[in-house]
């Protein structure tokens, strides 16, 4: 299922977010804190830069032999008694999980935080067949109670204040609740503990899968990932096929940089390496283990312009440093994955039409590249998407005409020379003291909040002949 085109245009969604004072404050506090935490973590870790290069090389090497690594992973998981399923689309992925849920006879599914299951809109589908999905990551739990979508890859409820969370808990759980994160967390612990023990089905994503050993790796701070993979009878992990790494040695390279990039921790509290179902002699663990490998547009990018986006670890570092994300937050992007990397992933999942406007929701400042643990060149791919949007005629014709006209002028010095005089003539009625405070048409978007400099009385080109003479003059002076 590719997501439907959104009813409200991006610019209005962004403007609405900008008008939300709570959101602005929450975003400002959170992103600033994440930035500082990340900077400190790498500041204490001189080998970090070299590890980032290694991690990038490992991702690339994995993609270059992805067929082999998938085969290896599948063989290993099957040898351990697990099952692997293959989903070409989000629809297929959902259908697979629903089949497993039906076969398990589960009435409730506990879930640990997973962007992959968000991507395939699993929760609604589970509800439809009578299986209650329970999000157990605190942030996701809040979002689920509020019937919202995550607004950040690793901090899904970043947009909510503690007051808002307390109100929500009071309403949903029908009890008095103070706006204290400590108390709110305790309430969630109590509510969810029973669910962990009751649920027959546990659903997770995966941060990595190690081909060489058939291991699925989950990184969490709360411990819910461990609960979900230990207590229910059935465990289903849903994972994009690009998350493979070849070996345990490779895995350690990623673990050394993932948490530092995400939350500034040296490691997240829990790194859980899961290998198939419960073993004989073990007290706990699922009787059935399933891995669902998802394509959903990823495989086509092995040879596509967004290939590098397949390196993404989903750490969220690029969101925190993005000047646009920091202003508008995750929801305004309108799709599952927000932020700069989210634009690329949205295009990967839903095609270029979905990012007609989103591809331009970036000043191309490049802060994301510097923050990315595997140095994904996001701005370059955003430009590639803009190219695709322009060339496939997805961009509005007025824009295309405007840029072709611009190209024509810039390609012809005689035409370009006329720009100065014509500009001066046109700007005359609008100019006040050397600047232009108000203009019609698209330039009005500029002048609504900013003055525009007027075209100079004489452009540099027009002044050059006089300047050239100055040099001759100076030359004769100094020669004398």
């Amino acid at each position, binding site marked *: 299922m590719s997501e439907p085109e959104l009813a409200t245009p991006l610019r209005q969604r962004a403007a609405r977010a900008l008008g939300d004072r709570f959101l602005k404050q929450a975003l400002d506090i959170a992103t600033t804190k994440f930035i500082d935490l990340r900077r400190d973590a790498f500041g204490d870790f001189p080998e970090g830069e070299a590890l980032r290069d290694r991690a990038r090389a490992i991702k690339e090497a994995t993609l270059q032999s992805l067929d082999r690594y998938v085969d290896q992973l599948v063989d290993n998981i099957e040898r351990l008694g697990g099952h692997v399923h293959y989903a070409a689309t989000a629809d297929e992925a959902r259908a697979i999980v629903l089949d497993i849920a039906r076969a398990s006879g589960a009435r409730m599914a506990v879930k640990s935080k997973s962007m992959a299951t968000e991507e395939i809109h699993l929760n609604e589908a589970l509800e439809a067949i009578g299986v209650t999905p329970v999000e157990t*990551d605190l942030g996701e739990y809040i979002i689920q109670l509020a019937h919202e979508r995550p607004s950040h890859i690793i901090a899904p409820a970043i947009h909510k204040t503690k007051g808002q969370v307390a109100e929500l808990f009071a309403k949903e759980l029908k009890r008095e609740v103070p706006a204290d994160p400590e108390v709110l967390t305790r309430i969630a612990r109590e509510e969810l503990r029973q669910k962990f023990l009751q649920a027959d089905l546990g659903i997770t994503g995966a941060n990595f899968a190690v081909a060489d050993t058939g291991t699925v790796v989950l990184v969490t701070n709360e411990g819910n990932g461990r609960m979900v993979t230990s207590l229910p009878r059935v465990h289903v992990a849903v994972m994009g096929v690009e998350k493979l790494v070849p070996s345990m040695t*490779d895995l350690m390279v990623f673990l050394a940089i993932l948490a530092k990039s995400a939350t500034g921790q040296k490691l997240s509290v829990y790194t859980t390496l899961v290998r198939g179902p419960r073993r004989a002699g073990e007290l706990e663990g699922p009787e059935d283990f399933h891995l669902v490998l998802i394509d959903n547009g990823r495989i086509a990018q092995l040879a596509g312009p967004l290939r590098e986006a397949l390196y993404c670890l989903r750490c969220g570092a690029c969101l925190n440093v993005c000047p646009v994300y920091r202003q508008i937050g995750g929801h305004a992007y309108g799709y599952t994955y927000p932020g700069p990397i989210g634009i690329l992933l949205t295009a990967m999942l839903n095609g270029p039409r979905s990012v007609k406007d989103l591809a331009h929701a970036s000043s191309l400042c490049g802060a994301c590249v510097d923050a990315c643990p595997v140095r994904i060149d996001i701005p370059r791919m955003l430009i590639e998407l803009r190219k695709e949007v322009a060339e496939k005629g997805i961009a509005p014709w007025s824009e295309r005409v405007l840029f072709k006209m611009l190209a024509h002028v810039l390609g012809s010095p005689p035409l370009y020379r006329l720009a100065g005089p014509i500009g001066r003539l046109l700007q005359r009625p609008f100019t006040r003291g050397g600047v232009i405070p108000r203009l019609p048409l698209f330039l009005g978007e500029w002048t609504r909040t900013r003055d525009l400099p007027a075209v100079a009385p004489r452009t540099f080109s027009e002044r050059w002949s006089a300047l050239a003479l100055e040099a001759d003059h100076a030359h004769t002076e100094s020669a004398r």
Partner: protein
Amino acid sequence: MSSRTEFVGRIRAEMAKTRGLFPATPAARPPRPTDLADAIRRELAERWPQALDRFRAEFERVGGVFHRVRTSGDVAQIVGDIARERNAHRLITWPADVLGLDVAADLRRHGVETTIMPHQEVVDAERQRLREVIADADLGLTGVDLAVAETGSLVLRSGPGRPRSTSLLPPYHVAVFDRTALVESLEQVGVFLEAWHASPDASAAGAVITFITGPSRTADIELTLTRGVHGPKEVHAIFVEAPIRG
């Protein structure tokens, strides 16, 4: 739904279209990880005090509580104190042969109700009973496979006698280790992971390996750090100076 053949075939087809890729290789793996792991242990037999200092500093930085005792005979006293101070009465523990020390009798003398986890397959009714015991327990006592100085992490393998939830469901987790568990870096952890998985003994790697780096935490509400959201709110590490297994 796609078949494996279709899925991998599609990957192969797309891979064939790529060109101009830069040369890239995965990380170089140790050719004989078991030997290398032994070598690391031998080296650390000399410089374990530095590794322990670093471990302690990092473990405390992530909110862990560090204890140090001379012999394994002193462990029960510390665990008993932890239990008493926290009003924790019910304890679950890995069995003595897995833990390397027998503390159950001493703990019971301290008034701690102690349940030993089984290390063989149990029938479903017993499984269900133990699950309730674990869910009600206040304190979980485990061993440690690796204690990582770089990050202050405890690495635990699951297996017979090593249920996953001993270090997860009770609000207090106490882990006992000695110098033989110490490693310096995540890179060295990688060597041990390679060695465990290369072992002909299929149980060497366990079904689940968990790295525990401090108590369970969340920062999902206004990025305010809160401990003990789903897992333990306190993690204690007891270092035993005299090697536990003699």
